[in-house]
């Protein structure tokens, strides 16, 4: 069964609240490591959708993950050049950080946001951090095991 088949609708997934997380919000690690150009880089699990490499190069942004739609690949821009991620990326478009958290819980790697949501990336990352805090998940590996109910 493919990743997309496992997720019917993210609205059917409900996290179970943890009333006593053993965490401080600011210490939660929301990044993941990906293999790019022969080395590991640490990025937030959010990719901005662009049509072409050139669009991504124009935006640049250190350690910003891009989803190049034409190539159907994920990559980062370094020194005005696109480098593609070597890892397999299970992905979906997400509307907010809670959806992103659900996606990661169900085995996804990265959530994609459209270009017009570029300004919301920080907000989405903060929403992800809140979901992790309220499920006692100190990092993305812990979030993968967070308690959920699936309708």
């Amino acid at each position, binding site marked *: 069964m493919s990743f997309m088949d496992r997720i019917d609708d993210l609205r059917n997934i409900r996290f179970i609240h943890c009333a*006593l997380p053993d965490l401080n919000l600011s210490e939660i690690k929301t990044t993941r490591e990906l293999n790019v150009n022969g080395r590991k880089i640490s990025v937030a699990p959010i990719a901005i959708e662009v049509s072409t490499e050139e669009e991504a190069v124009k935006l640049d942004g250190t350690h910003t993950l891009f989803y190049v739609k034409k190539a159907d690949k994920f990559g980062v821009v370094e020194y005005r050049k696109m480098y593609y991620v070597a890892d397999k990326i299970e992905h979906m478009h997400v509307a907010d950080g809670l959806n992103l958290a659900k996606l990661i819980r169900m085995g996804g790697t990265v959530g994609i946001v459209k270009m017009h949501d570029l300004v919301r990336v920080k907000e989405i990352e903060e929403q992800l951090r809140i979901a992790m805090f309220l499920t006692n998940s100190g990092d993305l590996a812990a979030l993968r095991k967070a308690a959920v109910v699936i309708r």
Partner: protein
Amino acid sequence: MSLPALIPGTASRKVEHVKVVLGTDVQFRKKTTMFEDVRLIPKGGTHSGDFAYTIDTNTDFLGRKIAAPIFVSGMTGGHDKVAKINMDIAGGVSEVGIPMGVGSQRAMMEHPELAYTYDVKKEHKDVILLGNIGASHAMVYSVKQIKEMLDKVDADFLCIHTNPGQEAAQVGGDIKYKGALKAISDVAENIDRKVIVKEVGNGISKEVAAMLAKTKVAGIDTGGAGGTNWIAVELYRAGGTRSMDIYRDWGLPTAGSLLEVKSAFDGFVTATGGIRTGVDIAKAIALGADACGLAYPVLKAQSRGGAKGVADYLRHIIMELKVEMARLNCKDINELRGVGYTTHGQLKHLLEQRVGRSLLQREPA
């Protein structure tokens, strides 16, 4: 008593909280307590027409005898404008014979002159009083300081509230919870009163209950979703921040939380969060709660009718409970605890995934 003209931070927040809860719709919208998914099965037998009036609702609250399995959950304190609320509630519970809590006593830790806003026993000595401190503050204050805080108001028990959801939504919220469980455990181990850990509207799960079961905590209050939504309160206060808006319906409903806690914790358990009728109380007791906490409806009753309003409301809900017990043919709370039940809909679905089939239903005793 005169106060400094401005008490920023903790104290003024208390006044705002009361205003928002009474003046704005901050109840859960999409999420209910899930008590509507519980059906109680009446016991066999017939009774005379005046049966409801002979029903005994007396029960035990951590070693203290109370008139009914209800208490008023801690809500407020820490500002002159809310002092009357606590005193009126004390007047009402004193008449009826049930316990009450006060809101977080952090304000009097920061400003000792505010102790009077929690000190209901100076006028109502017979009240069974639950003191209150936050889990994040239990990490800051020593057991000695917390004991002195309780002694100043002659509190009988200590509630430690945990509210990470509310803190996350609150502007300037205290979002450090690392070590909170250990701090709670240390307090429960060393303080001279029984400790109840409570949530404030997002529920206690079986995982958290299991952690608390390993400590000397005497009781857990579910503080489940379905009633007043404290994330919504803080969103309103913040002018509606988009970031936290998606968490507005976050939390474990009270009925679900109650059964999760019962599956992992053998101590005293109370159900709070959206309890609105005598039928809700009967269901919670049948599911295993030792008592139910009421907050918002009591606050409304106090705002409309003072101490008399509180007493009238409490008598009304106790009568509702008696009518439901009469329907179930239960003459006392012990019989109510043995009533059979079935679960349905979303609650059944939740239980199947979370605690297994053993708690889905029960045959009558």
